């Protein structure tokens, strides 16, 4: 199975499970969780089922294209099931079968791994899924997001696409993954890995990045004040990525680090609150159970 067949197969499978197949969000981000289809949608009472590929960036993980397993740009396949269904693990196992990984033939384990994103004010409990000793998926029940309790709780399934592909194709290096006949992962991404590694570690202009961070932080607050949740969130994402770049550049001391993280978390919380209020003003349109919908809206009025 080549790389794009893996993606298509997962899309096909989750589509059949009733997920909307969304597309990557058009801004830099560290993980699929940061796509508004996860970060914003997991807030509030409305159900939501979505799956999408997410190109993700971790500037500090760059290795100039020399390390067989580490990349500063890679792909996640993200699934959100809200509320978490009772058979969520079985659904996941079935998706592995679709990829030709028969759990009966392998050793598959769910090993405790809790997820936390201090910049997003988010955390959850779950596992890493091991396939014959290799971590291929992160599985999380979101408990909090943007500093707010998730209710209902959603299940997040994040597949490491390169890991799965190297396993299925029996390759020693991600760069050897066959993307499609005759074209490898290296053909598509190697040179940009090299270039970005140079940029992330040496080329990025620290002062410019700091200026941009400050501007984006301000803009996030200003736009949130206008009650424009998602446009404000764009600037949270920009701040987060700029912070990661500064970090890779070695421009942030340990003390400053905590400060930067708190600044991103604060605007993430403001945006999360704006989003939840907006959904409520809209009357929770995705809640098909009208009785529950009226009940929730009424509760808010009473509390408000």
């Amino acid at each position: 199975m080549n790389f794009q067949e893996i993606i298509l197969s997962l899309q096909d499978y989750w589509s059949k499970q009733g997920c909307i197949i969304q597309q990557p969000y058009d801004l830099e981000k560290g993980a699929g969780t940061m796509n508004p289809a996860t970060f914003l949608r997991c807030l509030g009472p409305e159900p939501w089922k979505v799956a999408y590929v997410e190109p993700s960036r971790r500037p500090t993980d760059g290795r100039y294209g020399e390390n067989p397993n580490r990349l500063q740009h890679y792909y996640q396949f993200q699934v959100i099931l809200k509320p978490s269904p009772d058979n969520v693990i079985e659904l996941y196992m079935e998706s592995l079968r679709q990829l030709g990984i028969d759990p009966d033939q392998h050793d598959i384990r769910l090993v405790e791994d809790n997820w936390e994103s201090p910049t997003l004010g988010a955390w959850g409990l779950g596992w890493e899924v091991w396939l014959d000793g290799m971590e291929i998926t992160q599985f999380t029940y979101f408990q909090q997001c943007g500093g707010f309790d998730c209710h209902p709780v959603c299940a997040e399934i994040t597949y490491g696409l390169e890991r799965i592909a190297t396993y299925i194709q029996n390759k020693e290096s991600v760069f050897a993954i066959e993307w499609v006949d005759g074209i490898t992962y290296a053909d598509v991404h190697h040179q940009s890995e090299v270039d970005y590694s140079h940029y992330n570690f040496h080329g990025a202009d620290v002062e410019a990045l700091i200026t941009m961070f400050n501007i984006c932080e301000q803009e996030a607050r200003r736009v949130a004040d206008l009650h424009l949740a998602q446009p404000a969130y764009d600037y949270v994402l920009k701040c987060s990525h700029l912070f990661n770049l500064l970090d890779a550049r070695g421009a942030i001391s340990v003390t400053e680090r905590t400060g930067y993280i708190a600044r991103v978390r604060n605007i993430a919380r403001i945006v999360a609150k704006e989003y939840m209020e907006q959904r409520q003003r809209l009357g929770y349109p995705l809640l098909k159970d009208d009785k529950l919908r009226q009940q929730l809206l009424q509760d808010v009025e009473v509390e408000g």
Partner: protein
Amino acid sequence: MKRDLLLEIGVEEMPSAFMAGALNDIKELAEQKLTARRIGFDQVDSLGTPRRLVLHVKGLEEKQEDAVIAARGPKKASAFDPQGNPSKAALGFARGQGIEAADLQIREVDGIEYVFAVKTELGGMTEEVLPEILLDIIHSLSFPKSMRWAYYQTRFARPVRWLLTLYGNRTVNVQIENVFSGNSSYGHRFLAPDNFVVNSIDEYFAQLRQRYVIVDHRERKNLIWEQVQETARQAGGKAMENDELLEEVCFLLEYPTAFAGRFSPSYLDVPAEVLTTSMIEHQRYFPVFDDQGRLMNAFIGVRNGTAASLDIVRAGNERVLKARLEDALFFWKEDTAKALADFVPGLHKVMFHERLGSIMDKVERLQKLAVFIGQQTGLSCPDQLERAALLCKADLLSNMVYEFPELQGIMGRYYALQSREEEEVAQAILEHYMPRFAGDELPASPTGTVLALTEKLDNLTACFAIGIRPSGSQDPYALRRQALGVVNILTETNIKTDLRLIINAACQGLVNVKTEGDVQQFTDELMDFIRQRQRGILLDKGFAFDVIDAVLALSLSDLNDIQDRVKAVQEFKATEKYEDFMVVFNRSHNLSKKWDSTAVNVEYLKDESEKALYQHLVQAQPLVSQCLQAGDYTQAMHRLAALRVELDRFFTAVMVMVEDENLKAARLGMLKTIAGLCVQVADFSKII
């Protein structure tokens, strides 16, 4: 008739680290709750796998025991009139309790008689109260971290997916959110995923086994260890004994099958600790050693399932480990490409604590303090101490320690040896973190011992100086552990030193640090904090708390001296002379408590008994002082105990508190002197 009770809580894979605690808690909760509800049982057992917590109560009585309940009413005096007829109060009480006034009983409480309504509450059927009890047990379980799922508010370690309950052959109705109890369960997630019905508890255990679940964790653990040893033997070596790893593996699977994997011998160039850490921490494999104890290029993994297609599993695991070891080899080569000392300048950029500066600032403090402690204790020499202190944090900047923080110190030693540092210096780098946990080895080399003390006392002093104190379960800087380390190093290696002097030196080293509060005050607090850890250690060693407290009351700053005194007093307490000594102390101490002066004007002494006592005292005083100087506390106490004869005579012959102020002063002065000598060993007023 007695019947067994079974509860199986089916969960999504529990964190392995929670299982031992959860199994212990569920057993204790069951024992408590059943006892509280007066339901007898023979035995409670708990078993578990990642997917199930199982409670098995053997021989549960089918009926609660009857209970006799006595409710107290008014006093007897106001409950009956003089003719013995019940008063309004008594009638009202009886009515309230639902009994006849004639049935009221009289009982005495603290010397006062009251009327009591004594009723027998008949025990109900166990079956009727079981739902409530089981629900209570489930809801009472708590975990280090728990979660919600879907729309529900219940918190549990992981989502609850099924509940099996059997009392004898019947189901007990329990509901957790959308899960209703029943008489069915599930086998192994992949090998026997279907729901199956269980008609009896015996059948439950038999069925699970057929369905690839070894539910008894003790049996599973033994089985795993047997398989691991056997597989290692077949691979030509011995598996590492590691109970923590074994326990974790046990709670990561339901049906174990061990297999041996190999890796390229070329990775054996990397220090063994790196390879074993990677195998254990990342992959949960058992490393394998040969007859000489050398690490082999093999590992033992344990799969959750049968031996079917084991080759695929082995190949996959070998591949994963290869990638891990490749990383480790890369780090080793990168790190050893330069000398360990070359990492040191980088420590300027690493923050130790925002108020305590960089790690380099800390290293500079360590260098000075280590030399001072070396001088105080007569261990090691300034050159080695300075060098070891300079290098001890350098490995924090190595790739390997970044990847495996638990290898700090261990890598420092290897890199020091690679950089041709002295063996003693390299060893000290490793040892300065010791003891790393309760029961860990203590540093053995002189330089390592001094540096270990330096590291801990710098941390303790610096944290206390900026107002950080452990409170309750909060101890983010592990100050308790470090204070315990200080006590253990000093007392186990018998280093006599004045800890207060060292802490003072550590305080002086805190240049450019904004301290909180008065130096004297936080030094006192720190000394107390360390002595409190020593108190715990001494209690664990079996010394009596009152003896320990008596010695600690002296606020001494040589921990070995404290231990010597505690030993001496405890041993002396078991001898015949102890009684004499305590008579001497109590009689002299009680009367002279409020007297300040030890001055004795001999001219005023007139009775023969007091003159004799004075003579003995004058003779004993320098001898006792000598003993105290020499640390011979036993002899000091013997000499003081010997004063009893004269002291008893004195008390028989004279009154101390006479009107003649001069005479009284002389007598009290003698008593004060005696008591003062006693409390130089320990504050005996604390001894019960």
